[in-house]
């Protein structure tokens, strides 16, 4: 701690930190543009000027940039000095010289950092009346809008895009006052983090293109704290709604999880909520041969009640994309031993294994922030850029940890971004990527390794053995693999915070176990190693913690037990082999599905109940770290939207959409006369925590519904929310009462507590004078650090350091290519592989079309080139992954007829000879969607 004197008053400050950050942390309003807590200082904009004095006697002082000056003990500075003030105002005026007259039609308006800073500087009238410089804009794809005239040349965009996120196609072009920030030509931005430009750019150059189609100002959005549902990382978000339509997603800072950034799937996937494929009303048929008919909620429940009364046996299938509460409610409805998880046997074994390893092992599972602190990383089998995108961004930071030592040795403070990067040059810390094919992170990898899962597992096991000789030895290892394993082991041993990343992405338990062996070997060798598993869905771990069998076990139970099958938020055809799902559905007398979108499974149901999406419900999700996080309802869904989503206000009818757990409660009441005392979410959460003691921390994930600040609820609407007395006036001149929210401490209103709520209840970042996202500074004790009051979320899994866990001994045999056959490996796509985000038009536009991938050499051996049609004949389904020995599908070949698919060929460099790639989850994959990969198949040119 140092003492700094600001305008002759002493304040405590962090020694060596830059003065801008310290002044902001102390609560001073010092304007700035180019500095960003995550990007550091470069001193490009000259906006943060202050006066620095030599000593107490010095009255003249000199102007310095706060962001480029270290806070040293005893330093004397002035923010209010008239000269410094004038300097800052002049800078603002210069920046505004060429600025267009655009605020009214600028999407940044109302949350524009440039507006805020201009006002803060008191630059109120434009004195310049000369000609303004102009630029043409570029079409940057469906996600980000470009309006280059508004640029103030702060360089934040390229510093984020290139330096922080590793993108290459956005750059600063031209020179002097004509610097242009864009691509070399029009085209989709390549980086999967391009959406962050919207928040990083302090002006309206980069704005959200999906928001533009249903534009609403920040102050008019109804918002609530939420959690991304599009992968297993659980990034924190702030969705915003108006007129019953979800309008956008913004980042919600969580120092331990996503920090300042989201990936584009998470930012733009939200439009599925407005999708045409939403289920908005109950559907019913009493006879399977008839089409589903619209029904009222009462009729549907009455029908269900009749079905359930009497001796009906019920089986429930939960979902890893539904909240803990929804799954638990279903489990309560059907009974614990008739509750199944709704994932395939293969996935459920993988998840069980992940959970078991995390629970019993000595290695801690790191938060995303801790991933950034790791100084040597091994990625085993997971294409993180596509299965857990934000994790890839964290890895791009972790490779800076070792090279940073160069800067430290040269006495360069780490916030001095330009100097640090100059000192580091192209140095990257150790990052080893062992995957099935090339990945987007390869450019920063120290070494890469390519192979099918068995080879990846063998590499991992070899590393473990090289670290700790007690770990099992891998027989028949090639010399190159052995050498690589030793090299990786050496680097991991030399690191202070080694990290191993793996996951379910390659569908092989041997890989999961190998990653555990490596980490445990490091722990045994006295290293504080961390182990991070990527899981596919937002509540994969949570669902697993509830327990329950797989789809295959459900099928067995169906064969002898059930009359009624209740499926929660799940399209089974994406989970398992189509034939198996067909059998499962055919075995049920009645099928009830509760989901928010229509899909292949709901088309076969007898009763469809409209569930609420993440934006219309509250609940708890457990991410891959084992962090339980609460998401909050953003708006009350309308039953029907009249006209198109763009304009017409919705009709004033309460919809039938409700939270899945409320449907379960209603079914219990209707069917069993079971008067469950579940009147709010808290009741369900409490029941869940009581039933499963391990889940007890979920009670603390957020304050309960009864929580009040100064006796008031926390408003979801800003204090400047407009149109309250006109938005419904076309329907009913009498203003409707604001909806009540029995489930949370938030209110669907602009009235309530106006100060800062506890961190897990922050609905928007706003402070007087700070309308832009930069208002976040006011919500942190130390700018850039955690939220005041601690980062939200409760970790469920605590590692026991020093604990000894027995190594996994199962060593798969090496991969042998088979003549005439190909091992089909799963290839994941950030855009397209995930079920919900693909319903957002922007994401759909970027999604790949179904294909089959070969490496270019193999393809040319077959006489194929990219774009050719190939015929794929699948060997019958077997569990390739349970252990190495079951890899041979011949045993089951007779039971299921082989299916034939036609696909377009694509090249995928990095695929090993004898392996081919199949994309996961893309629309239009037909029956391939449920096929468990890896699997063997035959290829033929068409």
């Amino acid at each position, binding site marked *: 701690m140092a003492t700094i004197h600001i305008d002759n008053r002493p304040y405590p400050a962090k020694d060596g930190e830059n003065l801008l950050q310290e002044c902001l942390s102390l609560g001073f309003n010092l304007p700035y543009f180019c500095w960003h807590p995550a990007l550091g200082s470069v001193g490009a904009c000259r906006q943060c000027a202050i006066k620095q004095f030599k000593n107490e006697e010095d009255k003249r002082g000199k102007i310095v940039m706060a962001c480029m000056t270290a806070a040293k003990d005893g330093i004397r500075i002035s923010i209010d000095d008239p000269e410094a003030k004038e300097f800052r105002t002049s800078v603002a005026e210069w920046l505004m010289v060429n600025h267009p007259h655009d605020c*009214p*039609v*600028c999407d940044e308006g109302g949350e524009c950092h440039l507006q805020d800073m201009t006002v803060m500087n008191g630059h109120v009238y434009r004195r310049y009346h000369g000609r303004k410089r*102009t630029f043409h*804009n570029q079409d940057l794809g469906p996600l980000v809008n470009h309006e280059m005239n508004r640029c103030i040349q702060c360089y934040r965009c390229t510093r984020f895009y290139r330096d922080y996120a590793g993108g290459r196609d956005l750059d600063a072009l031209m020179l002097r006052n004509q610097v*242009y920030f864009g691509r070399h030509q029009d085209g989709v931005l390549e980086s999967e983090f391009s959406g962050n430009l919207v928040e990083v750019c302090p002006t309206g150059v980069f704005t959200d293109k999906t928001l533009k189609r249903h534009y609403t100002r920040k102050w008019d959005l109804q918002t609530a704290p939420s959690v991304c549902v599009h992968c297993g990382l659980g990034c924190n978000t702030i969705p915003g709604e108006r007129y019953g339509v979800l309008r956008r997603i913004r980042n919600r800072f969580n120092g331990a999880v996503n920090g300042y950034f989201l990936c584009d799937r998470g930012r733009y996937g939200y439009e599925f909520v407005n999708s045409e494929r939403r289920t908005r009303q109950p559907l019913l048929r009493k006879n399977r041969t008839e089409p589903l008919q619209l029904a009222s909620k009462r009729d549907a429940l009455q029908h269900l009640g009749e079905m359930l009364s009497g001796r009906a046996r019920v089986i429930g299938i939960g979902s890893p994309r539904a909240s803990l509460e929804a799954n638990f409610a279903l489990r309560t409805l059907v009974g614990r031993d008739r509750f199944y998880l709704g994932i395939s046997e293969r996935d459920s074994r993988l998840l069980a294994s992940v959970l078991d390893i995390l629970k019993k092992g000595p290695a801690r599972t790191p938060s995303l922030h801790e991933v950034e602190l790791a100084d040597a990383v091994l990625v085993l089998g997971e294409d993180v850029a596509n299965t857990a995108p934000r994790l890839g961004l964290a890895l791009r930071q972790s490779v800076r940890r070792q090279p940073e030592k160069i800067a430290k040795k040269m006495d360069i403070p780490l916030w001095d971004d330009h100097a640090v990067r100059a000192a580091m040059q192209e140095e990257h810390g150790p990052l080893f990527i062992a995957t099935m094919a090339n990945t987007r992170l390869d450019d920063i990898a120290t070494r890469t390794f390519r192979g099918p899962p068995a080879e990846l597992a063998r590499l991992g096991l070899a590393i473990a053995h090289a670290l700790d000789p007690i770990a099992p030895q891998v027989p028949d290892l090639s010399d190159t693999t052995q050498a690589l394993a030793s090299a990786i082991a050496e680097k991991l041993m030399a690191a202070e915070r080694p990290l191993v990343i793996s996951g379910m992405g390659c569908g092989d338990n041997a890989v999961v176990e190998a990653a555990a062996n490596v980490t445990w070997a490091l722990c045994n060798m006295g290293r504080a190693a961390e182990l991070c598993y990527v899981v596919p869905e937002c509540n994969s771990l949570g669902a697993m913690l509830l327990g329950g069998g797989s789809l295959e076990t459900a099928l067995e139970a169906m064969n002898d037990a059930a009359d009624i099958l209740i499926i929660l938020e799940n399209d089974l055809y994406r989970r398992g082999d189509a034939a198996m799902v067909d059998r499962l559905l055919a075995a049920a007398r009645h099928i009830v599905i509760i989901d928010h979108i229509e899909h292949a499974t709901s088309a076969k149901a007898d009763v469809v109940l409209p569930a609420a999406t993440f934006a219309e419900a509250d609940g708890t999700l457990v991410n891959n770290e084992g962090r339980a996080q609460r998401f909050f309802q953003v708006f009350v869904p309308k039953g029907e939207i009249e006209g198109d989503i763009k304009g017409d206000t919705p009709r004033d009818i309460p919809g039938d959409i409700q939270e899945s757990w409320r449907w379960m409660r209603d079914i219990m009441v209707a069917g069993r006369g079971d008067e469950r005392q579940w009147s709010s979410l808290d009741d369900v959460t409490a029941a869940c925590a009581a039933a499963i003691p391990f889940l007890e921390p979920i009670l603390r994930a957020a304050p309960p519904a009864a929580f009040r600040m100064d006796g008031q609820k926390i408003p979801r609407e800003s204090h400047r929310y407009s149109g309250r007395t006109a938005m419904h006036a076309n329907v009913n*001149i009498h203003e409707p009462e604001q909806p009540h929210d029995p489930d949370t401490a938030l209110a669907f209103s602009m009235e309530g507590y106006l100060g800062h709520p506890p961190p897990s209840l922050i609905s928007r970042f706003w402070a007087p004078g700070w309308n832009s996202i930069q208002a976040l500074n006011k919500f942190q004790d130390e700018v850039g650090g955690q939220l005041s009051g601690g980062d939200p979320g409760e970790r469920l899994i605590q590692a026991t350091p020093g604990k000894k866990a027995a190594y996994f001994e199962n060593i798969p045999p090496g991969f042998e290519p088979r003549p005439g056959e190909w091992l089909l490996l799963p290839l994941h796509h950030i855009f397209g592989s995930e079920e919900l985000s693909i319903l957002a038009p922007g994401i759909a536009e970027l999604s790949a079309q179904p294909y089959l991938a070969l490496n270019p050499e193999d393809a040319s051996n077959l006489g194929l080139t990219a774009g050719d049609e190939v015929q794929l004949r699948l060997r019958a389904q077997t569990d390739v992954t349970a252990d190495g020995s079951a890899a041979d599908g011949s045993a089951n070949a007779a039971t299921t007829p082989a299916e034939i698919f036609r696909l377009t060929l694509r090249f995928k460099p990095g695929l090993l000879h004898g392996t081919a790639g199949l994309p996961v989850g893309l629309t239009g994959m037909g029956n391939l969607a449920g096929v468990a990969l890896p699997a063997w198949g035959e290829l033929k040119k068409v």
Partner: protein
Amino acid sequence: MWNSLKTMWIVFLHMFRRRVTIQYPDEKPNIPPRWRGRIILSRDPDGEERCVACYLCAAACPVDCIALQATEDEHGRRYPEFFRINFSRCIFCGYCEEACPTDAIQLTPDFEMGEYNRKNLVYEKEDLLIDGTGKYPGYNFYRVAGATIGGKNKGEAENEAPPVDPHSLLP
């Protein structure tokens, strides 16, 4: 006593003053042009809708009686898809007019808006839009703004230099 007499005297004198009360509605009052009455939406000198759907009037409105939704035409010109004022709530404060950056929304001297049914006081864009520029002739936001619209490309607004060519090698 004295006071009462004085009061009566004053009242008596008023009998000879000029009358201010007029026989409305037979006789129409003379309303100054800056009177804050019925709100209209005006058009720019080119005859296009002036409102650019910036939401500022809605935000300024103390009784929140303005609701609108922005949309864009195929050339990027922004305008309100719907624009609604609930006059049964409006207090005719004129804040919306002050907030409006395009001179679109204006209060007029018309105050004769009585209705038997409150519902008829809800005006949609069609009811609000007039054919002229209203009180403020001349101003055309899109001719000053940097944003492009159909018929006006980058560099063609007032006081704009031709667009920079980012592929040029000249310094």
